[in-house]
């Protein structure tokens, strides 16, 4: 194989890897947003996602998966900042309520009731947000 051929093969492989990586990132990137947009899932004041009604086993599995990842991130940050996991999770909920619950999407305050965001009206912040 000539040097030029080798270079071309290497470049092709590199391109395939970048494209694959981008596609993978795209799928993973939208998981939480897609679940919220579906209306089957909402954000809770405790910093975790919750199933709004009776969702399919597949949706529940996806929510569990995301919550496991969230808990891992919360645990990490809590140990770095001398806070409890619950405090980091609750602080995250404040930001999620303010920036990630879109119009028509669901949120759940500490009263346990699922509510739907009405148009572009602001989502009420949980009491612990200050």
């Amino acid at each position, binding site marked *: 194989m000539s040097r030029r051929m080798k270079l071309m093969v290497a470049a092709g492989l590199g391109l395939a890897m970048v494209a694959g990586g981008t596609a993978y990132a795209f799928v*993973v*990137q*939208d*998981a*939480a*947003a897609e679940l919220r947009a579906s209306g089957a899932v909402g954000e*809770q*004041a*405790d910093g*975790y996602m*919750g199933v709004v009604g009776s969702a399919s086993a597949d949706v529940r599995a996806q929510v*569990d998966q*995301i*919550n*496991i*990842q*969230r*808990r891992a*991130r919360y645990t990490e*940050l809590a140990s770095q*900042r001398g*806070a*409890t996991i*619950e*405090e*980091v*999770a*609750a*602080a*995250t909920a*404040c*930001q*999620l309520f303010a*920036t*990630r619950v879109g119009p028509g999407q669901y949120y*759940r*305050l*500490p*009263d*346990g009731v699922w509510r739907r965001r009405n148009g572009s009206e602001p989502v009420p912040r949980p009491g*612990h*947000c*200050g």
Partner: protein
Amino acid sequence: MGRIGKVTAAAAALLPMGGCVEVTAPERPIEINLNINIRQEVVVRLQEDVRELIQQNPGVF
């Protein structure tokens, strides 16, 4: 055995039963508890950190 002795013996016999607590494994791995005990000043202090956390973990948040 006197009366006090009988009462004491009965109480001693009942004690182990009272101490028996049934423990079952939870069905779900993560319990979502909305009645959380948190310090508000800590939550406020963490806002910048969690903003970064959300931005750095798309798909999870």
